[in-house]
């Protein structure tokens, strides 16, 4: 595809049941009622000059460039603010209009530098285009008058510059920040000629302001005032390829705008159905890691982990690895082997890794990093509703009246959806936040939570059961829905349980640490406030009762009838970009793709016929079981694609011991990650920019990932897995990932209608896509639950075994922040470190004072498992008794501190609750020092390849 700017219809789409027809420049056009003349003209193929209007912002009517003449109407109304009427006759180009427009343009240009030829936006500037469109030839006011040409450029943001001398004060940037992003970081200061755009308060620059660097203002700016630094450095793009962000579960689609093999910029794609043209700092700007100098591009092997790495050819690496794996299988049996798939890789790559494990290694020992994040979602939603996925699409939030957010921080972890949610909240939806921390949502510009329940970490089930108590005992349950859609006996058993006095808010309040009246209020609001939608994240799943909490959420939704239509539902906010997909693709040791248990003979038979091998009917090992078995000497080899279990999994010392006990650890990744310190084989991976495939986002939306440049390491990841399979003697011959998707569709009933041709034509598909739902399924469980009747499950509150006491009096909970991603392997290698250079420990002022701590001090953070050091940040975002940190940096090793307690049903680690003590410290802990020494030792690569 060549380079063309994305089409801008000037004003947003209007949804209406009725249409009107008008005539524009002699052409008839029929549009939804309420559509503006500007948009109607654009839809009919015409174009009206404009500057202050753009189609993702509400019309503003300030520039007066878009004037038109309308028969029977006096004057020259602005087309961006005038709705079409039936039979209206519009003229967009008349001598009178042209004269008026030239006059307007002249004023703009007289205060604008005339360095178009050397401007980085040359040929990609709306001001320039519009000046040409109105036929501006000369500026009568001269350029000598007052102007802003000398204003200094603000270069503080690492990704874009703000050059006020080029600003035409159209306020598109300000409106984008308000309306689209919802951060309200920009203002227009002053009036008339003196007015100018400024970030934050006087004296702030972009970096020090509230700006979160989402890029919406940059995209909205019609001039070179706000522009990506890369455009200045590289030049105007020559082609654009639409692809999907590889960071989070929102799944924003982008145009990768390229010049040769170089990315000039990533611009959110307006037709993207998950993001509708918006983005966050990660997807928009933090792709620099793809070319980072630390990327490993040649395969490497070594006999033991105390040796330095030796670079070898692909052939040697794969032959060596295959021989090792075959040997271990012969000696120790097939169950001594296993693999881990990645939620960062494509569906096709994930499918191949689990196929290699099941069909090649001959075992079900395959697991995925979703184990440590959303495995309880899989278990809980499958048990209650019958399918392991969220029930809604993102757009559904537009119809929500009450939004309940529990254990999630969408503005940081799922920013683009967070912005959508905030748009709805600003329009009046009510908000309940259940979170130990005062997250941004609790209070942000024009949004205040109606209820914030700052519960003690680990008491989610107690709070949800107390809410259920209120709903049932106050007669707020939706009995008609329950009778029709759920198993009544199971409901009655559950209702009897939640009604017990020991589940009342008053009884549980001391445990939860929240007033009973607030719990009652929140329950009443959710049950009676109209469409109620629940959004949750890792603060729900990463607990010893993660699965119970997911089921408790499902219980609430069923009890109130909040399921099966727009505006309601149960929505897990997925962490990594392809968590949903990795789970769908059969990455769990007990399930084949499409969540069919390995003991299901009919499902196994399908795979056995297609693959020509027997599938083990017994479940395989989960990651923690593999590590335990390795320590026992029963598990010897592992193929890990795109995961850093040493950093992301709990109880780092135990992970290290397990890995160290294995004979063959194969790491397939971009960088020598922490796990690679224990690896014998390193296979270089490719980035999402270098491969074809698909990702599935949190709304079950399957979206294309397209290769925008050749893999620097030579192969896409699926090709590496295929070559390893071939080296082990398997007859695999895929020539393109589309063939893998065809196989997935043949074997997976929920994917049977999915193929690349349709994805290319339709942009995306939401599974299930099959005979019953040929166009996919934005909303699930409309007429009935996937499992038949919805199942109420009794979720008794069982306190975690991790308890505070005199030695460890504080509760640590962990999370993530906007600019960094997961273990940070990618974002740490970008300029995003400007916002998060290190992990900090948030501690309440009272706890800090008791320990003589102030912000910036080094502290020792110790638990029963281990200790680490980091700097403190004193803040009342956390309650007294609670401390909080992120885990984006390996030096911190926050998981040295987390314990190996885990969810009872899925073994998802209990990251959100660890009893700790915090004391002043003056430097890194012993483990950090030992670890640093081991890591340096382990990362050596011999300079000359050995013979």
């Amino acid at each position, binding site marked *: 595809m060549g380079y063309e700017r994305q089409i801008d219809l000037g004003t947003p789409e209007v949804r209406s049941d009725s249409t009107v027809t008008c005539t524009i420049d002699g052409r008839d056009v029929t549009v939804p009622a309420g559509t503006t003349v500007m948009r109607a003209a654009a839809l009919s193929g015409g174009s009206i000059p404009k500057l202050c209007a753009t189609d993702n912002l509400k019309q503003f009517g300030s520039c007066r460039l878009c004037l038109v003449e309308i028969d029977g109407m006096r004057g020259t109304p602005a087309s961006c603010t005038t709705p079409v009427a039936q039979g209206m006759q519009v003229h967009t180009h008349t001598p009178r209009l042209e004269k008026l427009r030239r006059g307007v343009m002249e004023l703009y240009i007289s205060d604008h530098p005339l360095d178009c030829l050397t401007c980085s936006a040359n040929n990609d500037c709306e001001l320039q285009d519009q000046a040409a469109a109105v036929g501006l030839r000369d500026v009568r006011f001269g350029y000598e008058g007052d102007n802003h040409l000398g204003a200094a450029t603000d270069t503080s943001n690492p990704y874009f510059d703000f050059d006020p001398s080029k600003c035409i004060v159209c306020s598109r940037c300000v409106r984008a920040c308000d309306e689209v992003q919802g951060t309200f970081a920009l203002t227009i200061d002053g009036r008339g000629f003196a007015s100018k755009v400024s970030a934050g308060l006087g004296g702030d620059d972009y970096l020090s302001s509230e700006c979160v660097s989402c890029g919406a203002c940059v995209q909205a700016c019609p001039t070179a005032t706000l522009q990506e630094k890369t455009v200045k450095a590289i030049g105007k793009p020559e082609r654009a390829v639409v692809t999907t962000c590889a960071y989070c579960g929102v799944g924003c689609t982008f145009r990768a705008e390229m010049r040769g093999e170089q990315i000039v910029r990533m611009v959110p794609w307006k037709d993207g159905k998950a993001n509708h043209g918006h983005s966050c700092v990660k997807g928009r700007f933090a792709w620099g890691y793809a070319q980072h100098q630390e990327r490993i591009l040649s395969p490497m092997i070594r006999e033991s982990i105390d040796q330095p790495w030796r670079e070898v050819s692909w052939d040697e690496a794969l032959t060596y690895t295959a021989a090792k794996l075959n040997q271990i299988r012969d000696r120790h049996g097939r*169950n001594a082997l296993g693999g881990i798939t990645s939620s960062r890789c494509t569906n096709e790559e994930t499918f191949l890794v689990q196929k290699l494990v099941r069909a090649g290694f001959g075992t*079900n*020992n395959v697991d995925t990093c979703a184990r440590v994040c959303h495995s309880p979602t899989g278990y809980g939603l*499958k*048990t*209650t509703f*019958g*399918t392991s996925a969220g029930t809604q699409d993102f757009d559904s939030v537009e119809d929500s009246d009450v939004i309940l957010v529990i254990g999630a921080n969408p503005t940081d972890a799922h920013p683009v959806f967070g912005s959508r949610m905030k748009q709805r909240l600003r329009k009046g939806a009510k908000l309940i936040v259940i979170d130990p921390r005062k997250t941004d949502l609790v209070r942000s510009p024009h949004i205040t939570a109606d209820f914030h329940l700052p519960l003690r970490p680990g008491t989610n089930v107690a709070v949800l059961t107390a809410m259920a108590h209120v709903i049932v005992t106050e007669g707020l349950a939706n009995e008609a829905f329950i009778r029709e859609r759920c198993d009544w006996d*199971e409901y009655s*058993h559950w209702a009897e*349980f939640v009604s017990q006095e020991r589940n009342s808010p008053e009884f549980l309040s001391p445990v939860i640490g929240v007033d009973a009246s607030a719990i009652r209020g929140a329950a009443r609001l959710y049950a009676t406030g109209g469409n109620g939608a629940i959004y949750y994240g890792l603060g729900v799943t990463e607990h*010893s*009762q993660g*699965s119970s909490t997911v089921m408790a959420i499902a219980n609430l939704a069923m009890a109130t009838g909040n399921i099966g239509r727009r505006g309601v539902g149960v929505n897990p906010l997925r962490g990594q970009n392809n968590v949903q997909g990795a789970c769908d693709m059969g990455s769990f*040791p*007990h399930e084949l793709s*499409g*969540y*069919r*248990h390995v*003991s*299901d003979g*009919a499902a196994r038979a399908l795979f056995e016929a297609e693959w020509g091998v027997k599938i083990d009917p*017994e*479940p*395989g*090992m*989960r990651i923690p*079981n593999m590590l*335990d*078995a390795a*320590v*026992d000497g*029963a598990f010897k080899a592992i193929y890990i694609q795109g995961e850093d279990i040493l950093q992301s999994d709990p109880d780092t010392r135990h992970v290290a011991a397990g890995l160290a006990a294995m004979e063959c650890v194969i790491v397939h990744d971009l960088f020598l990650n922490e796990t690679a310190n224990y690896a014998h084989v390193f296979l270089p991976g490719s980035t999402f920019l270098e491969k074809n495939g698909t990702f599935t986002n949190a709304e079950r939306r399957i979206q294309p990932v397209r290769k925008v440049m050749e893999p620097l390491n030579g192969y896409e990841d699926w090709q590496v897995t295929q070559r390893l399979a071939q080296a082990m003697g398997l007859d695999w011959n895929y020539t393109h990932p589309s063939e893998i998707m065809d196989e997935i569709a043949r074997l997976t*009933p*929920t994917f*049977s209608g999915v193929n690349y041709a349709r994805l290319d034509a339709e942009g995306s598909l939401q599974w*299930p896509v*099959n005979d*019953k*739902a040929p166009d996919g*399924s*934005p*909303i*699930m*469980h*409309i*007429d*009935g*639950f*996937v*499992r*038949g009747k919805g*199942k109420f*499950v*009794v979720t*008794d509150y*069982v306190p975690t075994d991790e308890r505070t006491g005199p030695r460890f009096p504080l509760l640590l909970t962990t999370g993530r922040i906007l600019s960094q991603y997961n273990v940070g392997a990618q974002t740490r290698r970008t300029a995003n470190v400007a916002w998060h250079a290190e992990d900090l420990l948030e501690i309440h002022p009272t706890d800090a004072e008791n320990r003589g701590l102030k912000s910036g001090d080094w502290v020792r953070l110790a638990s029963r498992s281990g200790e680490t050091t980091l700097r403190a940040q004193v803040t009342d975002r956390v309650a007294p008794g609670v401390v909080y940190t992120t885990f984006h940096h390996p030096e911190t090793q926050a998981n040295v501190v987390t314990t190996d307690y885990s969810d*009872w*049903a899925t073994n998802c680690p209990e990251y959100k609750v660890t009893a700790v003590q915090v004391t002043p410290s003056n430097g890194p802990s012993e483990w950090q020092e030992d670890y640093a020494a081991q890591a340096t030792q382990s990362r050596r690569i011999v300079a000359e390849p050995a013979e």
Partner: protein
Amino acid sequence: MSAMTTDKLVYMANQIARNMALDADPVAVVADHIAAFWTPRMKELIFAHGSDGLDPIAAKALARLEKGREPAPQTRATDPHAHGADAG
């Protein structure tokens, strides 16, 4: 086999039992859960260990599994054939 791993398995079985204790038929659901998610090696290890330290529900569930040895098809919650039946 490692005592540590067996200790962990006992802990896991007890944790499952505690969380399913209020089900209408706790022994059945715990047995089902373990059959569906534990590997043969894990089951063998805990059978060999006996009922020491096990919660009564967990002990009964494991006894039932050991006697049957034929694992139940899967958790009762899991009905693979229903999948995709509701296309919304």
